[in-house]
């Protein structure tokens, strides 16, 4: 499932956050957040809209001052040493932070100059980054005419011009189609391979699993769970295998066979006759192989098969026993509509 295996080096924390608080009036956007990002690793900060993810990134990139608590990035304090801190970071926000009227090349050259590269180096660095992010053909076009994916890639290129030690990615793939999302993931993975430390915020469990070594789940400005991706997955139940037999009548027989086979750790499979599908919680690749092997050995004809990760909502349900704020709101809206109707 994961496209490459990472061997995180347990280094010193590149980002250290302790008791960070940020209020907007009565709203506590951050309500005492603690987290560490170890050097050379990717921390995924997972949470629904309004959880405080963007506020966290803005505090850590010196765009806003925290009200309380403290945070250091590369050893620099966000409040007292903002200037030094800014030399170590790159930021790619939810909205492309490049100039739309300028061309891709002009944007990168400008950023190179702002980072004190001599003219010649700024020029060659701009060329190099466009090449690397497959934007050479669009180099001279105004960014306003770029597609969503190209903009995001240019944004990443802009963040990487200064070779930052720490990169913040604030919902880097929100609003992108799946193919473009994969492109962005590939770019992020290649940057990580070069040793960049990444703090990634996302609403997607799948994205977190693809990119992150560790996860911090936040909701309403508070950390509600954290740990290695695998640990968290184990906690929330990992993947689910969905099998559709060619013959719907065989569903019950398949469940029975699975239960009787007593495969290691496999349990809780469920037949959903309405869909003609069978759902099996899967905790490891070995389990997946074993389950498929069993069905093959028993000679069941399979019409469709696939796995899916728990959605953010399922993760929340598993951790807190509550749905996410988004779903809560949507449910409240539905109720209002029902009342109105």
């Amino acid at each position, binding site marked *: 499932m994961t496209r490459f295996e990472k061997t995180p080096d347990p280094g010193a924390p590149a980002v250290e956050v302790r008791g960070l608080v940020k209020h907007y009036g*009565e709203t506590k956007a951050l309500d005492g957040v603690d987290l560490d990002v170890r050097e050379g690793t990717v921390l995924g900060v997972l949470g629904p809209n309004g959880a405080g993810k963007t506020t966290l990134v803005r505090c850590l990139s010196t765009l806003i*001052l925290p009200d309380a608590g403290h945070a250091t990035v590369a050893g620099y304090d966000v409040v007292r*040493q903002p200037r030094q801190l800014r030399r170590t970071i790159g930021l790619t926000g939810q909205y492309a*932070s490049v100039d739309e009227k*300028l061309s891709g090349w002009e944007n990168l050259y*400008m950023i190179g100059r702002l980072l004190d590269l001599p003219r010649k180096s700024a020029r060659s660095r701009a060329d190099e980054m466009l090449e690397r992010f497959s934007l050479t053909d669009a180099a001279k076009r105004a960014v306003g005419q770029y597609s969503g994916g190209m903009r995001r890639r240019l944004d990443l290129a802009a963040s990487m011009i200064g070779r930052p030690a720490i990169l913040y990615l604030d919902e880097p793939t929100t609003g992108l189609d799946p193919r473009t999302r994969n492109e962005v993931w590939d770019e992020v993975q290649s940057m990580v391979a070069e040793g960049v430390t990444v703090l990634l915020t996302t609403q997607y469990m799948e994205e977190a699993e693809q990119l992150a070594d560790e996860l911090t789940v936040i909701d309403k400005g508070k950390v509600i769970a954290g740990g290695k991706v695998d640990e968290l997955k184990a906690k929330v139940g990992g993947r689910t295998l969905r099998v559709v037999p060619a013959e719907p009548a065989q569903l019950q027989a398949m469940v029975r066979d699975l239960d009787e086979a007593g495969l290691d750790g496999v349990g809780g499979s469920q037949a959903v006759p309405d869909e003609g599908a069978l759902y099996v919680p899967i905790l490891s690749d070995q389990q997946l192989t074993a389950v498929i092997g069993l069905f093959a050995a028993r000679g069941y004809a399979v019409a469709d098969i696939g796995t899916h990760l728990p959605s953010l909502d399922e993760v929340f349900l598993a951790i807190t026993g509550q749905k996410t704020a988004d779903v809560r709101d949507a449910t409240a809206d539905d109720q209002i509509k029902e009342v109105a109707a």
Partner: protein
Amino acid sequence: MSTATLTPPPAAKQQLPTDEGRIGIRANLRHIGALVRRNALQIKKDPESMFDAVLMPIIFILLFVYVFGGAIAGKGNNQEYVNYVVPGMMAMMGMNIAMAVGSGVNEDFKKGVMDRFRTMPIARSSVLIAKIVVELGRMLVATAILLGMGFLLGLQIHTGVLELFAAIALATVFGASLMWIFILLGLSLPTPQAVQGVAMLVIMPLQFGSSIFAPTSSMPGWLESFTKVNPLSNLADASRALINGVGPIAHPTLVTLAWAIGITVVTAPLAVSKFRKRS
């Protein structure tokens, strides 16, 4: 939710940034240069954005010389009025171009690229200074067109080139100080429309309660007193004296410079600090 956390602990905000890592002057100039280039490229790609600087002087000079000029200076005295109104309009150009900075800054701030600038190791004032440099360029273009039109309509420099440049320089210095006011407005108000509205409120009385378009002697006493302190009046009088060689130069020049310095000293630090804090 505990009530205790509603009053945030005082810890973080009272710590001040250290001086380490300050940006040196040469680096600062380089950053301003790169940002000026950005603004200039924007104009190059969107030439319509120069319309105000190009058309305003043409329209205003035609309007005032041919529509009001006769009434103010008497029929047939157009040429005399050109020499009266052009130096005054040099002062007006600065104010009108400066006004555009406010809505420009406000709009710029809504764009993601501001976040990038503010997370980069550059002095935060450099973004604003670059904007001012480019707008001063636009102002000089407007002034050149105004003078060109003036010469076509019969403007005569009764003194010399040096005095003409002194008049342009004085208008530029005052225009730059005005830009800080409008930048401050642009950073304080929520939308470009609000900025424009408030800016008009500032501009209108200063512009028309002045000696720009007509001599102040025919105005009621209270208004005449207002024009005496109005920096635009003083700037117009100084330019007029420099170009026409009539009337005192030192007094209006000093009043204008005092205003320019006063405005800059008060509003520039406010604008930069607003820029720093705005999230």
